[in-house]
C-alpha cells in the first residue's frame, strides 16, 4: 500500500520543476498557446486582418427570403471569344510561370527601394541617336542647354536667398503664443478642451523643459558697471584725484602682497654665493678624511694630573635612598592637598561671586554674538564681489582704470586710445561667471623637417628650393 502511494506521488506532476537547462525548459513549459497565437497572427498577416475587412467581404445580405421563389440566376451571356481575343486578354496578365515569384503574403515589403533594373530604352539606341543628331542640327538641344543654365542660376540664387532669411528678422517672436506652437496636437486646439487636457497631451519630445535658473553671480552682477566719474575725458580735479588715489591704493596693495609673497617664499631661504656653496660642499665631503696637520689649530696643552680622563665618562646610576624618596612623596602629597583646599575654598567664594560671573558670561556671550554677526556680514560682503572659481585659473580681478593726466587734453579731438574694450568685455564675462577663466593657449606651429630621399636624384632646382627655405628661416 505504501509502495503504491509512493508511486502515485512520483507520477504526479511536480509543482516546482527546475527549468535550469534549455532541455528542461522545453520539457516543462507549455508553449502551445503562444505558438497558436503566433500562428494566428501569421495567418492574419497573410490573409489580412479579420476586423479590418469590409463588411461586404464577410457578410452577404440575404435577399432571398424563404417564402419567395428563387429567381432563375441571370447569367451574363458569355460570347465565345475568338482565339486571338483570348490571347490578347492574356497579354495583360502575368504569366503563369511567374506567379510563383509574386508575393502571396499581405505583409508589406520592408525594403521598398530595391535596385532598379535599367529599363529598355535607357541606353541610347540607334534610333534615339539619330533623333538626337537631328535635334542638334535643328538647335533644339542648345536651347535646352541654355534653359538648364538659367535654371541652375535661379536655383543658386534661391538657395542664397533662403540663407539670408536668417538675417531678415521678419517676425515678432514675442507674439502671443499659439496653441500649436506650444506643441499641443491640432485636434485638441479647441475651446472646449480644458487646458489641463491640452497640456497633458503634449508629446514628450515637444514638452518644454523649464530652464534651470542662471547662476547667482550672473543674475546679480551688472553687465556694465557704472563708470568712475574720474574716467571722464575731461574730469573735474577732485574726481580725477580720487581715481588716481584709488589706483595708488590698489597698486600699494599689490606691492604689499608681492612683498609678502617674497618674504614667505624666496626670502625664507638663506642665500649662499657660489663660492661659499662650493666651500660648504668641500667641507661636507671631506669629513673624516685625514687633514693636514696645522699646529695653530692644536688645542692648548692642558695641565694634566697624569690621570686618564675619558672624553665622555660613563653615566652612573645613582640610587635615591629611603629618606629622599619619603621626602619626595610627602612633598607631592602636600601639593595635592593644597590644591584641593584651594578648590574647596573657591567653591565657597564663588557662591558670593555669582552675580559677577553671570555678568561676565553675558558679556562674553554678547561679544561672541557681535563677532559672529560681524564676520557673517563681512563674509556676505566678500561673497557679493568674490570672483567665481569655475576653473583652475582665476579670472582677473577688476582693477581701477588708470587715466594718465598727460592724455587728458580736454577736447575730443586729441583723445588717444588706451584701453581695450574687447578684453574688458571678455573679463567682465569671466567675472560674472558666464565663462570659466582660461588662459588662451597658443598653438605651436609644427616644424617640418625636410630632407632628400636617399637615392633620389637631386636636381639643381631642388637645391635652390632648399636653400631658399633655409634662408627664410
Amino acid at each position, binding site marked *: 500500500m505504501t509502495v503504491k502511494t509512493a508511486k502515485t506521488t512520483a507520477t504526479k506532476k511536480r509543482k516546482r520543476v527546475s527549468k535550469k537547462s534549455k532541455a528542461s525548459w522545453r520539457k516543462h513549459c507549455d508553449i502551445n498557446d503562444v505558438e497558436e497565437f503566433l500562428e494566428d497572427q501569421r495567418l492574419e498577416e497573410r490573409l489580412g486582418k479579420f476586423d479590418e475587412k469590409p463588411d461586404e467581404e464577410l457578410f452577404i445580405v440575404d435577399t432571398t427570403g424563404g417564402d419567395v421563389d428563387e429567381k432563375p440566376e441571370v447569367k451574363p451571356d458569355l460570347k465565345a471569344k475568338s482565339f486571338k481575343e483570348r490571347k490578347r486578354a492574356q497579354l495583360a496578365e502575368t504569366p503563369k510561370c511567374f506567379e510563383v515569384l509574386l508575393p502571396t503574403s499581405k505583409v508589406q515589403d520592408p525594403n521598398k527601394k530595391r535596385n532598379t533594373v535599367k529599363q529598355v530604352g535607357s541606353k541610347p539606341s540607334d534610333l534615339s541617336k539619330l533623333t538626337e543628331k537631328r535635334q542638334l542640327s535643328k538647335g533644339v538641344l542648345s536651347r535646352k542647354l541654355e534653359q538648364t543654365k538659367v535654371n541652375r542660376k535661379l536655383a*543658386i540664387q534661391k538657395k542664397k536667398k533662403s*540663407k539670408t532669411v*536668417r*538675417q531678415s*528678422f*521678419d*517676425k*515678432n*517672436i*514675442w507674439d502671443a503664443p499659439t496653441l500649436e506652437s506650444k506643441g499641443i496636437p491640432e485636434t485638441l486646439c479647441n475651446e472646449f478642451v480644458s487646458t489641463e487636457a491640452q497640456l497633458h497631451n503634449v508629446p514628450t*519630445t515637444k514638452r*518644454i*523643459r523649464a*530652464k*534651470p535658473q542662471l*547662476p547667482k*553671480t550672473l543674475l546679480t552682477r551688472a*553687465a*556694465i558697471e*557704472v*563708470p*568712475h*566719474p574720474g*574716467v*571722464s*575725458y*575731461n*574730469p*573735474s580735479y577732485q*574726481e580725477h584725484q580720487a581715481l588716481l588715489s584709488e589706483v595708488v591704493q590698489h597698486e600699494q596693495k599689490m606691492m604689499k602682497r608681492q612683498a609678502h609673497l617674497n618674504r614667505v617664499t624666496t626670502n625664507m631661504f638663506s642665500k649662499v654665493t657660489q663660492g661659499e656653496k662650493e666651500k660648504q660642499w668641500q667641507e661636507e665631503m671631506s669629513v673624516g678624511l685625514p687633514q693636514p696637520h696645522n699646529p695653530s689649530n692644536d688645542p692648548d696643552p692642558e695641565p694634566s694630573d697624569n690621570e686618564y680622563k675619558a672624553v665622555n665618562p660613563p653615566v652612573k646610576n645613582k640610587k635615591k635612598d629611603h629618606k629622599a624618596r619619603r621626602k619626595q612623596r610627602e612633598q607631592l602629597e602636600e601639593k595635592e592637598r593644597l590644591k584641593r583646599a584651594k578648590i574647596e575654598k573657591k567653591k565657597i567664594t564663588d557662591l558670593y561671586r555669582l552675580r559677577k560671573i553671570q555678568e561676565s558670561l553675558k558679556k562674553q556671550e554678547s561679544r561672541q554674538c557681535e563677532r559672529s554677526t560681524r564676520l557673517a556680514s563681512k563674509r556676505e560682503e566678500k561673497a557679493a564681489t568674490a570672483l*567665481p*572659481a*569655475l*576653473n*583652475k585659473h582665476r579670472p582677473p580681478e577688476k582693477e581701477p*582704470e588708470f*587715466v594718465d593726466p598727460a592724455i587728458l587734453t*580736454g*577736447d*575730443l*579731438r586729441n*583723445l588717444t*586710445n588706451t*584701453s*581695450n*574694450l*574687447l*578684453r*574688458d*568685455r*571678455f573679463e567682465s*564675462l569671466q567675472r560674472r*561667471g*558666464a*565663462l*570659466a577663466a*582660461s*588662459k*588662451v593657449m*597658443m598653438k605651436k606651429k609644427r616644424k617640418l623637417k625636410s630632407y632628400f630621399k636617399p637615392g633620389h636624384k637631386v636636381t639643381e632646382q631642388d637645391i635652390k628650393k632648399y636653400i631658399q627655405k633655409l634662408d627664410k628661416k
Partner: protein
Amino acid sequence: MVSKRKKKYSTGEGAQFMTRKAALKKLQLSLKDFRRICILKGIYPREPRNRKRAQKGAGGIKTLYHTKDIKFLLHEPIIWKLRELKVFQQKIRKARAMREYGKMRKYFSDYPEINIDHIVKERYPTFVDALRDLDDCLTLCFLFSTFPSLKRVPRDQSLLCRRLTVEFMHAIIAAKALRKVFVSVKGYYYQAEIEGQTITWIVPHHFSFKPQNKDEVDFKIMSTFVEFYIMVLGFVNFKLFHSLNLVYPPKLTAGLNSDAEKDLVDEKAYVAERVAAMNMSIARVAGSNEAEELPDIDVFNTEDNDPEKMEEAKKEAEKIKVLKTMFKGLKFFINREVPREPLVFIIRCFGGEVSWDRDHFVGATFDESDESIAYQIVDRPSMDKQYLSRYYVQPQWVFDSVNARTLLPINKYLMGAVLPPHLSPFIDKTKDQVYMPPEQRALNDPNFKPLDDEPSDEEIEEASDEEKEEQSEQEDGEEALARQYKQEMEQDSPSEDDDDDDQDPDKKKAAKEKKKAMAVTTGVPVKEHPYKKEIEDKQAFRLREKLVPKKHRNLYKSMKAGQEKRKKEIWLLRKKRRLHDEKVSEEKKAVKRKQKMQALEA
C-alpha cells in the same frame, strides 16, 4: 534581506553636479560644439557649495555643470544640427584633401545653417526680459561693428552688427529714449529708457582698428556670443520698429547692405556712410501718426501713498518731457574735426536737425551758409569765417545739456573757452548726503546759487572798497526811488476815490447806509496757521514713527541716526568753509587797505 547599499555620491550634491568631461560624454559632442551650444543656450558653469562633494571626491578645481542644465541641453534640437554639421565638415575636409575643389565648393554652398530664433524666445520669454539683458548685447555689437573681417569671426558678422546697431540707434531716435550720455576715455556711455527698462551701453571711440593680442581674448568665444546677440538685437529691433509704427527693414544707405560690401573698402568711407545713414529719416507705416505724447501720470491710490514720492515722480516726468524736445526745431552744423557719430545720434534723439560739410562727407542735409543754423559745433580754438546768426559751441555743451536736461548757458562752452569738467551722470542719487563744496554744487546744479551773495568774480572782488560803497549807495538811492514811487502810487489811488467823494457827499452817505442795512458780511477764510500745521504734521509723523513694526524698528533707528550724523557732518563742514571764506576775504580786505594806506602815504 539587507537593502542595497547606497553608492556614494549617488544623491545630494554629488549627483547634482557634473564635470565638463562627463557632460561632453553624455551629450556626445566635441568640446568646441559644447562650448558653442552652451553660449547659445545660456548654460553656464556653476560653483558648488562643497566642491569636494560635487566633484565626487576628486581634488582640484574642475569646471562643473548642473546635471539639470545638461539634461536641459539634451533636449535641444540644435544638437542634431551640430552633428549634421560635423558630417559636413568631414566631407569638406576629405574633399579638400582629395583636391576635389568643385565638390568642396558645393559642400560649402550647401552648408546647413543653424536657426536659433527659438532659443531667443526660450531665453527671453517676454520682450522686457530681452531688454533687460541688452546691455552686454549692445556693447558687444557696437564693438564688433568696428572690426574688420578677422580670422575667427564669420565674415558676415561685423557687417550685420553694423546694420543692426544703426537700426537700433534709429529706434532710439524715433522713440526719443536716450536719457544720459557720458564721454569717458574708454568710449561713450549711453543710457536709454525703453519700456521702463534702463539700458546702458558703451560705444568705443572711433579709432582705427588696433590688432588684438592673441593671448588676451578668445575670439572664437566672443564671436559665438555675438552670434547670439545679433539674433536678439534683430528681433528687438523688429519689435521696437513696429511699436513705433516704422517700417522694419529700414532702407538705409548702400554701405550697410551686404550687396555693396565690395565697393566700400575704405574705412573712412564706411564711417561716413554709417553717419549718413543715421541722419536719414526712416519710413513710417502708412496711415500711422506720430507717437503721441504720454499723458500725465495718473494718481492711483496705492498703499504706499507717499506724496513726496509722487511729487518727485511727477517732477521727473516733467523733466523728461522737456528733455525729449530739447533740441526741437534747432539746426546744428558739425564742423569736420568733431566726431560726428555721437553728436548726430544725440542731437537727433532730442529733435534737432544736423548737417555737416557737404564736400567732405556724404549725407549732408543743409549747407554751412544756411542762416537758420542755430549752433555750430566746433572743436578748434578759432575760425576764420564766422556767422553772426549762430553760436559756436564746443561738443561738450551737447553732452552736458543732455545730462542737465536743459539747454545750458553757452558762455562756458564757446569756441576756444576752457571747458568746465564733464561730470558723470551715473552718480548714485541716493548717496546725496555728502558734503559738496559750493563750486562742485554749482557744477552739478546749474540753478544753484551760493547763499551768501558775494560777488564771486575776482575782478569785482578786486574792485576797491570805495567803489563798493558807492555801489551800495547807488543801490540805496535806487531803492529809495522805488519806495517813493510806490508810495506815490499808493497815494494816487485813494486820491481818485476822494475825487469821487467830493462830487456828492450826501448821496454817498445814503448809499452807505443802505449798504450797511443790506450788507452781507464777507466770510472770513479760516486762516491756516503755517506754524501750527507744521507742528501737527510733526506730531503725525512721530505717531507714524511709533507704528513702525518691531521687526524694522532698529533698522529705522539706525537709518535715522545715520542721516542725522551725516547732516551734522555736512553742517559742520559748511560752517568751516564759511568761516574760512570769511577769514580769507577779511585778510584780503586788510591787505588791500594796507596797500591803499601805503599808496596814500606815498
